């Protein structure tokens, strides 16, 4: 039964990519994701992985080459960070519209300006509406597991969608943790070889992506939407199977921590959930009934699961490691989606955003204390006086 290794998020990703027997890898350097390509290129050089390792002429090219390769039936892997993610923006919709299950690692990085290496989710979240499956991992182990799970879900003939496999730069990409590496036979059982549905192949000539008549537009868009919706049960199935084969059980969409009797919760995607868990333990010692709701998939957005989960609490603090200048409520990208999900529910919690970790700053235990304190006040007063707090600036 497998081995245990001490790996960074990037090391974990590379190991999973190798075990997934990827055919085409497209690279371009940008910190912090670069390391995964250094490891993969060495694996190819050593003959441990038989893949075309391509030095793309930029991120736009990485994605374009992956698109062509995926349409021609290859399992493909690519990745980027920060401005690299946004440089490729044009390519994302054609890839999901062509229903090519390309996988892209995003190790988050702050967009310019400022010139900054830290993790901030705006790079990935800025691409959330492009028809890609998207979610965050909190630890190197979760990164490894997500890499396999995403391929399986994205390549499922009911889904056929590309995937943004995200994790925080540095906090996850560069800090090692224990990773259980399964046997190859377990991986093969979980993730069968990619069977492309309609590949570009002279033996069966097809046209990919012709122009349409305007009245054909709505149906094509609805079908891409349906593919994303179809991903939900497929994710549940995959998570079930994953637990059975590897012995690690995940909540498919939303993981809760210390919520049984909680009145207040932190709502988080990604690495800061790790700190939040410690913060919650300390806060609980002080009698504050706080818990954690960690969202594992941003796309498809698990509306129903969140309705059930969040309606049980008095106040929700959405921790936003992203920025969207001028968005509804004046905070980050996640809170409007959380609010939107709960709007139809009669019993709604009060919701405030906490802008934190911008520029790659860690969110400290003290800051979680601050969030808890504000949430407590909100719950007690029963109203939102301020929908957004910028951590570190406000009393």
């Amino acid at each position, binding site marked *: 039964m497998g081995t245990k290794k001490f790996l960074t998020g990037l090391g974990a990703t590379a190991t999973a990519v190798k075990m997934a027997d990827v055919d085409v890898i497209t690279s371009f350097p940008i910190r912090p994701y670069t390391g995964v390509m250094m490891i993969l290129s060495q694996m190819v050089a050593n003959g441990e992985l038989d893949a*075309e390792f391509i030095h793309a002429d930029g991120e*736009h090219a990485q994605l374009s080459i992956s698109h062509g390769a995926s349409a021609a039936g290859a399992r493909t892997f690519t990745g980027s960070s920060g401005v690299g993610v946004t440089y490729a923006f*044009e390519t994302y919709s054609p890839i999901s519209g062509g229903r090519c299950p390309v996988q892209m690692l995003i190790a988050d990085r702050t967009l310019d300006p400022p010139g900054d290496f830290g993790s901030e989710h705006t790079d990935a979240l800025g691409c959330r509406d492009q028809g890609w499956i998207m979610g965050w991992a909190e630890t190197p182990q979760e990164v490894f597991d997500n890499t396999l799970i995403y391929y399986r879900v994205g390549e499922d003939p009911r889904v056929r969608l590309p995937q943004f496999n995200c994790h925080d730069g540095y906090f996850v990409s560069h800090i090692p943790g224990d990773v259980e590496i399964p046997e190859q036979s377990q991986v093969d059982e979980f993730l069968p070889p990619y069977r492309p549905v309609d590949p570009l192949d002279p033996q069966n000539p097809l046209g990919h*992506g*012709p*122009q349409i008549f305007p009245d054909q537009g709505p149906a094509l868009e609805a079908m891409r939407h349906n593919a994303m919706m179809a991903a939900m049960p497929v994710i549940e199935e995959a998570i079930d199977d994953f637990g059975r084969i590897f012995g690690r059980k995940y909540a498919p969409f939303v993981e809760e921590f210390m919520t049984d009797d909680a009145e207040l919760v932190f709502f988080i995607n990604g690495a800061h959930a790790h700190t939040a868990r410690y913060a919650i333990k300390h806060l609980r010692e002080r009698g504050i009934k706080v818990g954690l709701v960690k969202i594992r998939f941003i796309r498809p957005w698990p509306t129903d699961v969140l309705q059930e989960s969040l309606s049980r609490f008095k106040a929700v603090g959405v921790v936003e490691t992203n920025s969207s200048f001028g968005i509804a409520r004046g905070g980050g990208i996640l809170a409007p989606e959380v609010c939107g999900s709960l709007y139809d529910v009669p019993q709604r919690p009060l919701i405030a955003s906490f802008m934190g970790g911008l520029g790659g700053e860690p969110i400290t235990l003290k800051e979680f204390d601050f969030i808890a304190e504000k949430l407590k006040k909100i719950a007690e007063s029963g109203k939102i006086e301020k929908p957004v707090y910028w951590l570190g600036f406000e009393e």
Partner: protein
Amino acid sequence: MATQKVEKTKVDRIRSLAKAPMDDYYVSGHRTCAGCGPAINYRMVAKAAGKDTIFVGPTGCMYVANTSYLCVPWAVPWIHAQITNAGGIGSGISAAYEARIRKGKYKGKFPNVIVMAGDGGSSDIGLQALSGAMYRNHDLLFISYDNEAYANTGIQVSPTTPYGARTTFTPPGPVVPEGKKLWPKDLAKLIVGGHPSVAYVATASIGYPIDLMNKVRKALNVEGAAFMHIHAPCPKGWGFPADKAIEIARLAVQTGMWTMWEYENDEYKINIQPKKLKPVSQYLEAQDRFSHLTAEHKAKIQNFVNHKLAMLGIKVPVEAVTA
């Protein structure tokens, strides 16, 4: 890219029109303008390449006018690319076949991968993707069909638009009497000049189909990347009657406005070179896009052409301009 070469089929030389393949893989039923030069080019390329081919079609006339209403006129696989990234999509298809055949995941022949990009999609916004594909030497043929403008968006200037041409972004006026003021980018030379792995680069013209089809076959037969720059007059954009695309294409060669060459084994070989060149004014005067030019402008273009020919080592006399 491949570490271990995957075997490819080779195709023979076409000796005459009578021996040209009968089969068409670019078929009737597309709404390119009547008399469209790039459509003629597509037909010849598809004929020469045959059935084991995959086309990549970036946005431009050869995408928009060919694939209306969720249907395609190609009897071989075809995929849309963005105007920016045809070289990337082509690279990916080629890489996928390398990997899949080598790993035993695909049973079949390595296909001809042909990118069919406009001048905009190859010399301008798609240049990086083209250069990347050539540099990495993927097994593919990149064709730039040159109608000397961003035609599909309504004939805007591109880097290959000739000096002095009127386009909808270079309208002549009192302050800018010549319309386009810049000299065109020489895309084929750019590929030759900076991409040492590319084994075959050629220019061709729809006016000379046997030459064109044989160059396509030669390009497909080489291992790795190949590039062709094909002159394809556009009646709508250039302002000439719909029946004249071939005439104009030949005039371009007869005046030296377009040169026909191959680059192989570190050498240029000039093909189809008239013994005597006609003055460029004959070519210019046959097209409305040059109708505003003065004798001075035309002389400038003649000088430019003379210089270009000299650089290629072509020494032929130009006939005197007859009034």
